[in-house]
């Protein structure tokens, strides 16, 4: 769903904010991401010298163990790190990932629940993400997708708002969000049959999205345009 450059960008910003600068750290993080396995050990040693007793370095050491496949040791390392800092999201996630990789699904679920206890629902997670970084369209989009999947009139209305926000943040170029609006309008229409008629603003929004989609397809994927048009027509029919 996310393009690679976007993902890297987000991670970059995250690291910058956490760290507040420090070129060596950022570079080494990039090295880690690009998985240049050769200099892993050296990198960690360098970091240990520069930041003795740092939790982040401890985390990197544990990740190195995990990358080498020493899952049991890695898990122990993560668990002890979590004892000192129980709110570290990254470590929680790594621990779940290890359990998953070992096929220990019940363990993964247990740890995942502990992680989610802080958030309660995936939807609430995204709300937090959006609050902390409201200009990242990918969070709005993911939240909208989750809301739509959860279903129900209220969630559908909310989903529509977040798709609209995504469109706003991406200058109307995000295909998934544009489709999302059409899906929401159609689903709301079906659910709200016989109740209050859909307001003008909402059907305008749907028409605008449809027009935007057709324009984008015409530019970038003209062979698919007839198919898109008939797809959009089937959305309108169900209203």
């Amino acid at each position, binding site marked *: *769903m996310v393009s690679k450059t976007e993902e890297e960008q987000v991670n970059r910003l995250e690291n910058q904010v956490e760290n507040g600068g420090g070129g060596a750290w950022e570079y080494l993080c990039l090295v880690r991401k690009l998985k240049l396995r050769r200099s892993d050990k050296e990198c960690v040693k360098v970091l240990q010298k520069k930041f003795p007793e740092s939790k982040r370095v401890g985390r990197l050491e544990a990740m190195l163990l995990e990358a080498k496949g020493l899952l049991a040791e890695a898990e122990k390392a993560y668990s002890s790190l979590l004892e000192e800092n129980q709110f570290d999201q990254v470590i929680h996630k790594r621990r779940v990932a290890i359990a*998953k990789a070992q096929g220990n699904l019940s363990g993964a679920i247990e740890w995942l629940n502990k992680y989610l206890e802080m958030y309660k629902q995936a939807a609430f997670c995204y709300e937090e993400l959006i609050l902390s970084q409201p200009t990242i369209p990918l969070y709005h989009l993911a939240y909208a*997708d989750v809301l739509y999947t959860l279903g129900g009139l209220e969630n559908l209305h909310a989903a529509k708002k977040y798709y609209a926000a995504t469109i706003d943040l991406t200058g109307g170029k995000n295909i*998934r969000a544009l489709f999302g609006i059409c*899906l929401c309008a159609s689903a709301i229409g079906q659910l709200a049959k016989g109740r209050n008629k859909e307001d003008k603003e909402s059907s305008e929004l749907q028409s605008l999205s449809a027009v935007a989609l057709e324009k984008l397809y015409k530019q970038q994927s003209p062979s698919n345009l007839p*198919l898109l048009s*008939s*797809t959009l027509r089937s959305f309108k029919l169900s209203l």
Partner: protein
Amino acid sequence: MSGDSRYEIHQNAYLKLVLHALKHRTSAVNGVLLGRSSADGATVEIVDSVPLFHSQIGLLPPLEIALIMIEEYYGEKGLSIVGYFHANERYDDFELASVAKNIGDHITRYFPQAALLLLDNKRLEDLPKGKDRSPVMQLYTKDASNWKLLGSKGSNQLTVKEPSANTVLLDYISSGKWKDIVDFDDHLDDISKDWLNSELFE
């Protein structure tokens, strides 16, 4: 009874699904099967397939869009959705994921003999060693309320139309052909990418 149906998958449909799974080794992937019932109703022909997603497989909106577009396109060709393909994230995981069952259930409402195919990683890995001509997938069909495994190796219920399919597959694996395959996720990220993969086997 759907248990008595035989399922025949055309080579290109088969190849697309496996290549898609190979392209995204570290995640679960899925796809839909397009085809029709034979005139006597005894065989289900899987004529084509469309690889769907390799991320966030459980989310509804992209799935709904994909299914609507796919039905529109293939409906004109007289083909309908006759099944679903799933490849689990982990190599040794042979469990049928709940999302697979949910989508499968939905398809059986319109096509009761729907096939649910699960990639068999072990047989895929063993391909270069033996002369296995049968597709490297497990076949499930719905019987009353449960998805049942219709026997994998040795059973004739799922066959590939062209006997040389696995040889071609091995060829493509060594030439890295899986890099060229496009799924619906790729299309939604960049609509200039062709989810029909019409030029993949030219």
